[in-house]
């Protein structure tokens, strides 16, 4: 078997110190393989986002080891971490984090701008990503004038524009109505299937989780092994029932 893209070994994270110290993650081990779709599922406050941030190298674990394609993340230089965040990872969040009064295109090409791609190429690649999400006609609109679904599609276009290997999505449908949410889900899974982009979705929505190849259940900062990694992913009903 090939080396996992990301491998967390017994990672833990706590916030605050002294009496206020709170162990958000108490030792979780996860392997993410290239091309798979993984759901991180759990109740609000269980530590899902914390785990995702650690996997995405946005934060450092207090204990345990994180391997990126077999290399210890602690040994990576700042420059390399920035390159990974910029080139290999794409992010989709529940709050859209679009710059309100900038155009949709400007928002989408931000990762390219950070990477130092020249303006002409930025525009071409930004438009290509927007076309893929059927937003090309909105490229010149300011981000604030988009509907919720359009905003999330713009965010996905931004996550895609650098052709990432992994897309991290934290509650991507949390702010959307069911129908729009379903469209966004379809887009994400299509990217996973057609382009082989690894998908890591944080959600408390059991149905969305069930669409992924694999689920990791988190409860109070620990993996709930009684439910995680079920091979019966084609039968989501069983899990939905267990958590209903």
């Amino acid at each position, binding site marked *: 078997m090939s080396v996992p893209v990301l491998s967390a070994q017994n990672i833990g994270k706590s916030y605050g110190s002294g009496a206020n110290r709170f162990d958000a993650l108490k030792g979780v081990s996860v392997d993410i393989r290239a091309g798979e779709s993984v759901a991180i599922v759990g109740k609000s406050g269980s530590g899902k*986002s914390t785990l995702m*941030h650690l996997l*995405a190298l*946005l*934060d450092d674990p207090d204990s345990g080891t994180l391997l990126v394609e077999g290399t210890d993340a602690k040994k990576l230089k*700042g*420059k390399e*971490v*920035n*390159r*990974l*965040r*910029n*080139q290999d990872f794409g*992010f989709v*969040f529940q*709050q859209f*984090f679009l*710059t309100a*009064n900038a155009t949709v295109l400007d928002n989408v090409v*931000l*990762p390219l*701008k*950070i*990477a*130092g791609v*020249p303006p002409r190429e930025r525009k071409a690649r930004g438009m290509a990503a927007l076309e893929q999400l059927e937003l090309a006609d909105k490229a010149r609109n300011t981000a604030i004038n988009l509907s919720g679904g359009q905003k999330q599609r713009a965010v996905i276009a931004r996550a895609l524009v650098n052709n990432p290997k992994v897309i991290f999505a*934290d509650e991507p449908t949390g702010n959307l109505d069911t129908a729009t949410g379903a469209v966004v889900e379809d887009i994400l899974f299509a990217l996973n299937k057609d382009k082989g982009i690894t998908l890591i979705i944080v959600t408390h929505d059991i149905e969305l989780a069930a669409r992924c190849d694999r689920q990791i259940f988190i409860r109070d900062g620990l993996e709930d092994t009684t439910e995680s990694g079920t091979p019966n992913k084609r039968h989501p009903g069983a899990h939905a029932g267990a958590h209903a």
Partner: protein
Amino acid sequence: MKFIDIVKTAIANSFRSKLRTGLTVIAIFIGAFTLTITSGIGTGVTSYIDTQVSAIGAADVLTVSKAADSTSSTTDGPAAYDPSKATTVSLGNGSRPGTTIQALTAKDLTKIAKTTGILNVDPSVRVTPDYIEYDGKGKFEIIVNATATLTTADLAAGAQLDNSSTTDQILLPTTYLKNLGFASAKAAIGQTVSIGITDYAGVQQEVKATVIGVQNETILGVGAGLNQPLTDRLHTIEVTGAPAGATDSYATATANFDIKSTPAEITAIKDDLAKQGFASQTVADTIGSFQTVINVIIGVLNAFAVIALIAAGFGIINTLLMSVQERTREIGLMKAMGMNGGRVYTLFSTEAVFIGFLGSALGALAAVGVGSLVSNILADGVFSALPGLQVVQFAPSSIAIIIGVVMLIAFLAGTLPARAAARQNPIDALRYE
């Protein structure tokens, strides 16, 4: 992120909250405006003085006088009277009437002449004629410009005084023309005027002189200039009938040294003279003390402008700290997308520098506009008697320096907020609701 993109983004960001940026820009504007105006006045006055000084061609001349007695300092009280010391109060030898100063005697002149570096020495002779008259059109008081033979006049018409000429020449200021009855400066050239002067015995005599030139009045010497032969002739009349010994002492003497002397050599000559009990000043020294006063005034004005700029610097800090706060999410997002802290830092300090540039460039521009306008109005009005004086003048280099310094202050003010931005944790941004 490419530097050009950082600059573009920083500029766009500074325009995002227009009111806040605008107020900060106004604060900087005031400081830069004041600084530009004061520096403009400095340049204007200095350049005026410089033209006046360059008119004084005598770079190789020392004005020598007896040094004030070192014992008569404020703490020791006046020195005891010494009858052996020559004093001079009379007219005709360069002293001001009514003052008692140590006079230079013939012996002193020999001593000065023997000093190393001194080529020759001449006693300064000051004459006080009673009146000037042209063509019987009325007598007018005349003031003699004592430094006229040392200076190169700023001519309105005619030629410079010629000391080696055998004719008696006079250089009239433009202000004399109308009263004396000349239609224009040109019309006066070559005309003969009469000068009245009283001798030691109280008898008034008249001397004829030719108008060689007409000069614009300068701040350093007001009045008519006389060439050496005319001065000598008038002096001879003034001392006619004086008792022996009353005329061979002088308040000051002019000593010539090698024009090629270095400042160090000039200092050596002055030190040497000082040791022998003579005070000496070059023309540059005299002008220098005048310029020092102006520089002090300008310095004080500049200090106020700098204080205004420092206050504006705090405005920049405040503006940017608010921006950093407001843009927490955005900074976090950029960092999550792989932007390094250094670039975030550069982004915010560029914004600070841009705000500084905007304020200082606008301030300098407004100052140039207002300054030039006021200067022109004054030149035609209050200062019309001083032709060539543009009170406010702008040197491109000093404007560039002002803008540069303000941008530096802005950069320094920006470091604090920029550091706060660079240290933002992407996670905080992502959790920011």
